[in-house]
């Protein structure tokens, strides 16, 4: 991940810094949220909220405690979780992939088929393993960042990803049918 934003050691973000942060991460954050909601409106809404959150708390940002992308990703990740929890009043749902496929997940029609297919696979993974797939494979973040976003060690994240692959490899016959 690009570490374009340097805030030195001082706390808080200036207007210019905030603008840079926005330009650097808006696309990534949006797609991250989209991968977890599969709904444009929701993704735009939660993206707005993520950056508003960043803005409102910009003076509290302390570079000593974490990098900018880690901070923003954590905000986004928690907002998605809150969104589903509030909506479904269930603590077991972390993103769109946790919703049983029989129910309407309000995803965009363009990706409906793809979501239905992916759901067979992704719903089998625990939420954290899904996040690894999204962050490592789809978002191409380095393990160093992933580890900090997820609050785990790098080694643990790598191990988690290897488990994902083992699991999915075993399910490959199913995947073959779905993706070919």
């Amino acid at each position, binding site marked *: 991940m690009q570490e374009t934003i340097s805030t030195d050691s001082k706390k808080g973000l200036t207007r210019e810094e905030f603008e840079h942060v926005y330009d650097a991460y808006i696309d990534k954050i*949006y797609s991250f949220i989209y991968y977890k909601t599969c709904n444009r*409106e929701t993704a735009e809404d939660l993206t707005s*909220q993520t950056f*508003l959150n960043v*803005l409102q708390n910009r003076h509290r940002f302390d570079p000593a405690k974490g990098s900018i992308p880690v901070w923003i990703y954590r905000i986004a990740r928690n907002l998605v979780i809150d969104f589903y929890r509030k909506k479904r009043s269930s603590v077991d749902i972390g993103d769109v992939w946790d919703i049983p496929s029989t129910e309407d997940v309000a995803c965009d029609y363009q990706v409906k088929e793809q979501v239905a297919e*992916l759901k067979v696979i992704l719903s089998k993974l625990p939420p954290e393993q899904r996040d690894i797939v999204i962050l490592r494979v789809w978002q191409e973040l380095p393990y160093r960042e992933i580890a900090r976003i997820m609050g785990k060690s790098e080694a643990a994240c790598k191990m988690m990803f*290897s488990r994902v692959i083992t699991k999915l490899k075993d399910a490959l016959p199913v995947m073959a049918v779905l993706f070919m």
Partner: protein
Amino acid sequence: MRMTIKSILNELYEIDPSFKDREKEIEKTVKKLMESKIDAPIDNNFKQSLKKRLLSEMGKTRPSLFKRLLKPRLILSFGGAFAVLAVLLVFILMQTGPQDTRTKSDLISETSTNGRMEKMENKEMQSLEKVIITETEEKTVISRLDSSTISDTKSKPKLSGETDGKGGYKDEPGKPDVLQGGDLEELTLNYQTEAFEGSGYNPDGSLGSEGQTPPQYKDLSNLVDKYNAKKDAEKFNTEEYTKYRENGFLKAIDNPLSTFSIDVDTASYANVRRFLSYGELPPPDAVRIEELVNYFTYDYPEPTGEHPFAFATEISACPWEESHKLLLIGLQGRKMELASLPPSNLVFLIDVSGSMDEPEKLGLLKKAFGLLTEQMRPNDRVAIVVYAGAAGLVLPSTSGEKKRDILASLDKLEAGGSTAGSEGIQLAYETAANNFLQGGNNRVILATDGDFNVGPSSEGELVRLIEEKRKQGIYLTILGFGMGNYKDSKMEQLADKGNGNYAYIDNLKEAAKVLVKEMAGTLFTIAKDVKLQLEFNPARVDSYRLIGYSNRMLAREDFEDDTKDAGELGAGHTVTALYEIVPAKGYNQPTELKYQTTKVNEQAYATDDIVTLKFRYKKPDSDTSIPIEVAVRDEDTSLHSASVNFRFASAVAEWGLILSQSEYKENASYRQVLELARSSLGYDEEGYRNEFVSLVEESSRLGE
């Protein structure tokens, strides 16, 4: 650099070398995973608009520190001057703009975005007028105050430009004022943001009210565009709050009578809550203390006799000023079972203008009316009138039995166009009159953000229409929605004139409170024109001050004048009023003027009475008032032994004094408010008192 499948594979082999043995299988799995990536292109408009909005938000929030350093009233003057300059600038630009050859009807017939723009322009004109009016009125008030003699126990230096005249016997109606501090329209904040604290960054807490779902926007980019269209106009705020002069202390010997009308509105509380939930203190003029106090229900005795309400009084120490006392007067309206309520003829008058096109406005409104519809009985009737560019009857008066029809009509409503509020009100009243139920509850329920602009008639004409219909037995309830452009002052005035009430709906929980739990109170009037007059005993009271109710003061002669309008009491409503009293010290010397002498008689010294309380009210279908009179004995009860009612009501009032930056707040503190409130939560079934405590905590964080 784009990650290749190779690098992922290599990482995997590092972790688990055994993967290498099944290289083909693994590669296929990873490849499929990469290929199954969902396409998620971000909308460029959304991206740009959000950036603009955030940056402008940043510009807005920055001066807050500066703001805190300055005295708020001073800010008002600066803000006013800035607004005048800004408006003048816009006005000049409008004059020289290239598109001014368009006629008004051209403008209206344009797309909805332009419709909104036009609305903005009108609004700017309106702001301009208001600012100018404010200035001239202030001058008038200042000169009037200067020339009048005011008895006052607490002279304090005032900032220049401050028009707060304590002590005039009849409080003048307030002056419209354009204030700083209304917040910009929030795009995304349907639930609250918790501060990031401690070591971890824990964004967004789950503080939002229960039952409130996160926002669902039809098209956020559309919303953002709209925001941008409005942005310039909102720089100098379009939320309007009327500035009322706070009631000052009056000498009991010179002004023994205090007369006011009850007020059952609660809108200010919900509005204050809305500000706090967005991390801002409310503008002082958005705080009406009586509405904060009356948001809560208190445990007063139930009426048993001939009168539709009972009342309680209590005297104890004043929490924020030890040497003073506080007198509480509580009214309890008779509760009525839903089944025993008269049939209703309701007309939902719904603002579907462009400015309502937001989830927390039209979206919430539909849900709120849905809740109300569910309460309807077969003998009730509901009609729906909408207004935007033109007013229209969406649903003719329909029996409460046909809930599905009513709900379907509500569901179909869409926002667009500019606002012709007065036409809508006319049509709604016509519809109500055509279906008038003799002896029933005939009522127009207006739901709006209050932005009446394109209507054919002026505000004054609207008020006259509403007053006239009130006399014909059609009442008005106003439900306020939304933010950023919220016309609090206008809505409260309209509801007052229409024998109605006014609530602000900030979330679905509030909608359920107003329209389901307290529906009887909101919609069924049990007593109208309820007035109170207190005669203070100067032998025991040196001076007194009514807390809040600044815009509800009446002249002493209005009390017995049955043509003078006053507040309505709904079924089950409780109303609470608090007087701060400075106890008399020793014997009053007669006050001798050139032509008269005021002397306290012996009887006053002989009695324990501190005040005589007089009520007047009318039955809903009568024009003659019924009087009630009772004397209240003086007491020396400590705050600790005061009732839960008393302690909670005084906590809320004290909070109101702080938030409204009252000059009479003395030693009021957030800490004391919290102590009092926590000790008087009582049986808080719905959690409103607990919510109060968290709001006080939030305001304390913001304000200290």
